[in-house]
């Protein structure tokens, strides 16, 4: 019989993923909007937490919630590009993408900043956080093929810009 891991106390889950989710949201939304999105992400997680039956894929699960919150925020905004760029520039000198960030993340994150939202999320999740396509698909609310496509078209776009 497969034994499923018990759902950890929320505090443990929050401690384990809070910081990386915050960094991810700063990357997608800029510092200021990331704070609201962070709160919203973990409140949504908390609302759903009591119904979780096992502890598998918790990391992918919370990235999914964060991605949806971020995409909702993008949809809500009128002129997202300017704001995101502004926020990012503001943050640029102050310790983003340092320390315990995934190694591939630092250079990638900066490059990915001007991609369309879905492609940016896909590229950062795939190469920054090493999530498999199935999890990225769940995070984007799309099929696995669409997640692959978003990732590779994001990468193609980056290549075109670099040449």
């Amino acid at each position: 019989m497969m034994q499923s891991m018990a759902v950890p106390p929320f505090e443990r889950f929050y401690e384990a993923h809070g910081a990386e989710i915050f960094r991810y949201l700063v990357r997608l939304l800029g510092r200021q909007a990331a704070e609201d999105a962070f709160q919203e992400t973990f409140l949504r997680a908390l609302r759903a937490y009591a119904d979780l039956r096992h502890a598998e894929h918790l990391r992918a699960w919370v990235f999914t919630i964060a991605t949806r919150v971020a995409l909702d925020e993008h949809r809500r905004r009128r002129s997202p590009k300017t704001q995101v760029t502004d926020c990012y520039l503001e943050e640029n000198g102050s310790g983003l993408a340092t320390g315990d960030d995934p190694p591939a993340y630092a250079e990638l994150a900066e490059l990915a900043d001007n991609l369309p939202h879905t492609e940016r999320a896909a590229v950062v999740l795939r190469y920054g956080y090493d999530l498999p396509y199935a999890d990225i698909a769940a995070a984007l609310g799309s099929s696995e093929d669409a997640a692959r496509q978003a990732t590779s078209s994001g990468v193609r776009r980056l290549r075109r810009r670099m040449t």
Partner: protein
Amino acid sequence: MTVPAELDRRFRESAVAEGLVDVGYDLADSPIGLLLVAATDQGVCRVAFDPEPERELATLARAFGTRVLRTPKPVEVVRRQLHEYFEGRRRAFELDLDLRATPAFQQLVLHELARVRYGEVDTYGGLAAKIGKPRAARAVGGALNRNPVPIVLPCHRIVGASGSLVGYGGGLERKRALLELEGAAI
């Protein structure tokens, strides 16, 4: 980049304000060491001497629900009353308790225990007799040993038939310190 402290605090407060927390807990300093205190929306559900929350949190999650979060608000009252108790300014606790996860026999014992007053002591056999089970002194001892809310429910006031301190979930030194604080004749 870690989560900014202010943002972290705001999230924890909102979680409580929206009623999304099964158990709120925090640590409290005391003269007998750091305590972990926890409460549900029904009342105080845990006072623990071992402030290493690792095992404690898993137990709380199993008993009351997985949404266990460190946050000061739900335990503000119990922390304040414990502080007053340790300063000698409080002789009785006025707190709602959540003993849902406690078996019926143990609840019976704890209920009787709550009547043993500040500065007084009783014996395991005495308590057993009071709940109508005079031969259940050992079972009473076991029930007290698993008291989820020590200090608040004063299992430190129960001693052996000879008057010796015998046992205490938090260790005999703590039991002695609590009885001395209360000025009990031991």
